[in-house]
């Protein structure tokens, strides 16, 4: 995206954008200040992606609609996290702390949806098995079924 001032080391350097607030660097020891152009570009991309989200929802891709919607939303979320929330320039521990939440959330989703998917599988297996059983197992006595 557009240019931005970046000083990951925490040491002062002679970037022009830093001159105006060198004092802040000394005091708070961190100082990534994004340019307004970067924020504007991120906003524009987010708005375009919102329009795309609405557009693709009108087209029937079958089961892929959910995946497409979530993929676009994930790209939008990543932009917000990386640039608006500045996580791209944050410390390693803060990245680990926040992004690990999504890792644990993925476990919840995987097992929940795994349960959901195998329920259907289980249902189909029973349906198949019932057919097989009919051939080999004696039918229940009349009147009891």
């Amino acid at each position, binding site marked *: 995206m557009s240019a931005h001032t970046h000083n990951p080391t*925490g040491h002062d350097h002679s970037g022009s954008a830093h001159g*105006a*607030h060198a*004092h*802040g660097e000394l*005091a*708070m*020891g*961190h*100082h990534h*200040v*994004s340019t*307004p152009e970067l*924020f*504007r570009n*991120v*906003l524009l991309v*987010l*708005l375009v992606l*919102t329009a795309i*989200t*609405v557009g693709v*929802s009108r087209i029937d891709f079958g089961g892929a*609609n*959910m995946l*497409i*919607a*979530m993929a*676009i*939303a994930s790209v*939008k*979320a990543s932009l*917000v*996290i990386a*640039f*608006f*929330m500045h996580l791209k320039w*944050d*410390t390693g*521990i*803060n990245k680990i*702390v*926040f992004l*690990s*939440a*999504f890792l*644990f*959330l993925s476990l*919840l*989703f995987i097992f*929940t*949806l795994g*349960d*959901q*998917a195998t329920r259907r599988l289980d249902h189909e297996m029973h349906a198949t098995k019932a057919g097989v059983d009919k051939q080999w197992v004696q039918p229940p006595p009349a009147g009891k079924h």
Partner: protein
Amino acid sequence: MSHDGHHAVTIPAPGPEFVPHTIAHHFDTPVQEFQSAKLGFWLFLATEILLFGGLFAAYFFYHEQYPETFRQGGRQLDWVLGACNTTVLLVSSWTMAMGVRAAQTSQKQKTLLYCGLTVLGAAIFMIIKFFEYKAKNDHGLFVFTDMFGGYDTASGQLSWFKDYDGVMANVPHGHLFFAIYVTMTAIHGIHVLVGAGLIIWIMKGAAKGRFHSGYYLPVDLVGLYWHLVDLIWIFLFPLLYLVP
């Protein structure tokens, strides 16, 4: 700048319109104060992700179980209003980012302006949300006055689910979509209100000159909270208004 336990560490103000910041007594340096607060806040935001994550898991589970209920439910929402609110939140996220930037660069008036615009965005969002809720209430899809009414044996439905127009009559468990819709958007809406309150608090401090290039920690943290509110909505909009 190290601190021997007796002398407070103070970050000087960069100009006459600002006030110096004295760091909390249990910190030795401004960097330590800043990084501790940031770590704590990211941890809090991680718990927020898990809070909403549980609700998203419920959404995905029941969406898979009753896809037609969710699609029919989604058709009862006004996607234009949803898209408007998405735009409002995205723009307000941008104004917040610009507000934090203004604080970082000691631009007091700009900090106040951008924070004010963000609060305006929060207000527009909640007004649109109110009219959406009112429509759901009027169609009996979620009757707010009966929300704790329990199970109505006469109708065989939860007492808040009246469905006066019968729009959900042909799908199983029509109430499910609206239970999830209201729960997720109401918890999100509470976050919008809390966020707006926090930004107003930031504006009070900014007006007094508390935030500048030497100390803008509270602006930064409130900004992170506001972006999280936007982050959640980015997923809520397609899932609820454009049910895939």
